C-alpha cells in the first residue's frame, strides 16, 4: 500500500488529523491501568505488521506535513538544530543508518544507490534527489545530521560516550516536550534529565545509563514515553512557551475531547559504528482524546491512568490545570470493565 500523506498544520488553524488507520496503529503508551516510572525497554524494530514498531524509522501519513512544520520552526530559530564540532562523524553514522533503513523498508518512497563513497539519494514524498560524497560535508547543503533529520519524523539527539557517561552533543529538536536543545546541548545524561521529578531517587537514570552504555553495535532498542499537549502542536518548546502557553488555558468541558492531545514519544536507541555514539530518536505521535476513545480499551485505561496519577507527575507533564476536565470527559468512556494486558487495542 502506498501511503497517502495528510495536508495539515501543527500551528495556526491546527488542521492536523488522524485517519482511522492512523488511530488504530498509535503506539498507545500504557500497558496497564496505572502509570509508574520504569525503564520499559524492548528490542527495536519488531512488532505487528503495520504497527509503528515494524520498521526501524516509522513513516506515516503525517510525514510530509511534519517536515514542513520542522522547516518553519528552523527558519524561525536555527538554534533548534545544533551539533558540537566533534559530532560530525556521528552525524554521518545517523545519515547512513536512516537512509539505508528507509530505502530498505519503504522501497516505493526512498531509494539509495551507493558506489563506494558516491551516494545517490532519492526521497519521493519530499521531492528530493541528492548526489553526494559520503563523509564529505561540502557535498551536502548542510551538515549530515541536519540534512537527514530534515527528512525524518521525530526529534533526534546524538549522545557521545566518554568518561562512563553519555553527553548530548548534537540534536535536531523541533517537537520537544518543553526542553531546550540550545540550553541542554553538551550536558551529560544526569544533567539533562535533572529537571525530571522523582526519577533520580528511584534510580531510574542510573539503570538506564548502564543499559545504554552496554549497547553494542547492531543493537537497537525502544521505549514509550508520553505527555499531554493542548492542540496538536509539535513545537512546544520552552523558547516559545510564552506564545503557546496561553492555549493551555483554553480547554473547556465542550472542547476538551478535540483540543486535549495525548503526546506519545516512541524513543529508540542505536549504537553507531564509526563514532561509537548513541543515536536517540524521539518520535512524536499526537492523538486527541476523541481519537483515543474510539478504542474502548484505551478510553477506559486512559481515564484510570490520568485519574490516579501522582500529582507531581501531572504537574511535570503539564496537564495538572486541566486534569479535572480531562478526567471528567474520559469518565464517560469508562464503564469499569476490566482491560486486557498490553498496549494494543482489542480487535
Amino acid at each position, binding site marked *: 500500500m502506498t501511503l497517502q500523506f495528510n495536508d495539515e498544520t501543527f500551528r495556526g488553524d491546527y488542521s492536523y488529523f488522524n485517519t482511522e488507520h492512523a488511530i488504530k496503529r498509535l503506539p498507545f503508551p500504557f500497558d496497564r491501568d496505572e502509570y509508574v516510572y520504569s525503564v520499559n525497554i524492548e528490542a527495536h524494530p519488531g512488532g505487528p505488521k503495520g504497527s509503528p514498531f515494524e520498521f526501524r524509522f516509522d513513516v506515516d501519513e503525517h510525514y510530509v506535513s511534519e517536515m514542513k512544520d520542522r522547516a518553519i520552526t528552523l527558519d524561525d530559530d536555527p538554534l533548534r538544530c545544533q551539533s558540537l564540532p566533534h559530532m560530525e*562523524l556521528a552525524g554521518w553514522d545517523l545519515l547512513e543508518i536512516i537512509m539505508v533503513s528507509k530505502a530498505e523498508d519503504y522501497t516505493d518512497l526512498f531509494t539509495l544507490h551507493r558506489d563506494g563513497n558516491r551516494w545517490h539519494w532519492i526521497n519521493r514524498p519530499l521531492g528530493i534527489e541528492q548526489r553526494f560524497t559520503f563523509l564529505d560535508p561540502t557535498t551536502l547543503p548542510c551538515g549530515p545530521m541536519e540534512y537527514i533529520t530534515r527528512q525524518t519524523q521525530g526529534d533526534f539527539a546524538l549522545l557521545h560516550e*566518554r568518561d562512563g557517561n553519555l553527553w548530548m552533543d548534537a540534536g535536531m529538536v523541533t517537537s520537544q516536550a518543553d526542553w531546550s536543545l540550545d540550553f541542554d546541548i553538551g550536558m551529560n545524561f544526569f544533567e539533562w534529565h535533572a529537571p525530571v521529578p522523582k526519577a533520580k531517587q528511584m534510580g531510574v537514570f542510573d539503570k538506564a545509563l548502564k543499559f545504554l552504555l552496554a549497547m553494542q*553495535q547492531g*543493537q537497537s532498542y525502544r521505549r514509550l514515553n508520553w505527555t499531554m499537549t493542548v492542540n496538536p502542536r509539535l513545537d512546544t518548546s520552552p523558547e516559545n512557551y510564552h506564545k503557546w502557553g496561553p492555549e493551555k488555558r483554553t480547554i473547556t468541558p465542550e472542547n476538551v475531547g478535540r483540543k486535549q492531545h495525548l503526546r506519545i514519544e516512541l524513543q529508540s536507541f542505536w549504537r553507531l*559504528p564509526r*563514532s*561509537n555514539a548513541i543515536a536517540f530518536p524521539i518520535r512524536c505521535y499526537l492523538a486527541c482524546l476523541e481519537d483515543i476513545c474510539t478504542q474502548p480499551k484505551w478510553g477506559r485505561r486512559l481515564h484510570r491512568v490520568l485519574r490516579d496519577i501522582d500529582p507531581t507527575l501531572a504537574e511535570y507533564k503539564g496537564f495538572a490545570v486541566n486534569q479535572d476536565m480531562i478526567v471528567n470527559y474520559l469518565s464517560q468512556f469508562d464503564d469499569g470493565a476490566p482491560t486486557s494486558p498490553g498496549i494494543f487495542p482489542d480487535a
Partner: protein
Amino acid sequence: MSKQMMLEVTEVEPLTPLVTRFRFEHPEKAPLPIFSGGAHVVVEMPDGEMLRRNAYSLISDPNDASGYEIAVRREETGRGGSRYMHSEVTPGTRMRISVPTNLFALDPRARKHVLIAGGIGITPFLSHLRQLDLLQQPFELHYAARSRDEAAGLKLLPKSARIHVQISDEGNRMDLGEILTDQPIGTHVYVCGPEGLISAVLDAAARHGWPKGALHSEAFASPPPGKPFTVTLAKSGRTIEVSASQSLLEALEAAKVEIDWSCRGGACGRCETKVAACDGQIEHNDHWLSRDERAEQKKIMPCMSRFTGAALVLDL
C-alpha cells in the same frame, strides 16, 4: 553477551618471533560491520574441553569492511589462549568473533592526542591512527618495547615524524616528563600496555598537574592463571571448580551458568557479580571495582579475579 559472526582466517603472518597477525573475513566475503578506533573483538577458541574467549584490539582500518585484523602476542605463562592462536589457527580456520565494542575511544574534542604504547599495547592505537588520519587531528605517538622481538608495531606503523619508537634493549627509554611538559591546553593522553607503564604515565601526569579527565588508559589485561579454587553458587547450591589455567568466568561458562560479559579484561563492568559470603581473600585483578569495593569483598569481576581461602559463595 554480544552478537557473534562466524569468520574465516585468511592470513596468518608472524610480525616478530613473538607476535602474529591474523586476518578474518566473512566466508562469503560479505561486508563486516565497520567500527571506531580503539575497538576490540572477542575471539572464541574451542580449546579441547574448554571454550576460551579472548578480547583483542582491532588493528585494521575501522572503515574497511572487508576484514578484521588482530595481533596476538604469544604468552608462554598465560592460560593458553594466545598459545592456541599461535599453534592451532591457520588460514581456513573458522572462528566465532563478536561484533566490535569500544572501551578505549579517543576523545574527539581533544585539541591534540598523545598516544603512549608499551609492547603489545600498540594494537588499539593502530586503528586510532587511521581514524586520526580521517579526522585530520594532531597527535604524537610514543611507542616503547623491550626488544625488537616484541615490537610488532614496527612492521605496522606508518613512517611519520610524529611517531617515536624507543627500544629499551638498545638503551632508549621514554622520557615521560618531557612528553607531558608543554602540551597545549586541551591535550588528552592515552596509554596502553603493561601495568607498570600505565602507572608510570598516570603518576607522572599527576606530578605534572594533569587533570584526570584528560587521561585514558587500557591495561592490556588477560586473566592471569593461578592456583585452582572452588566457588559455591548461593541460589543453586552448586560448587564449581576453577582450574589453574581457567578464569572464574570461563569456569562458570563451562558449567552453563548464565553470566553477562563484554570485555573479559576487567574494564567494562558487565560481569560484576555479588559475593554472598567470602572466607578468604579475593585477588582482584580488574580495573572496575573501586579500592573500597575491593576491600569490602562484596563484589567480584569473574573475568579477571581469583580467590584463595576457605570458601567463596557467589550470589548466582
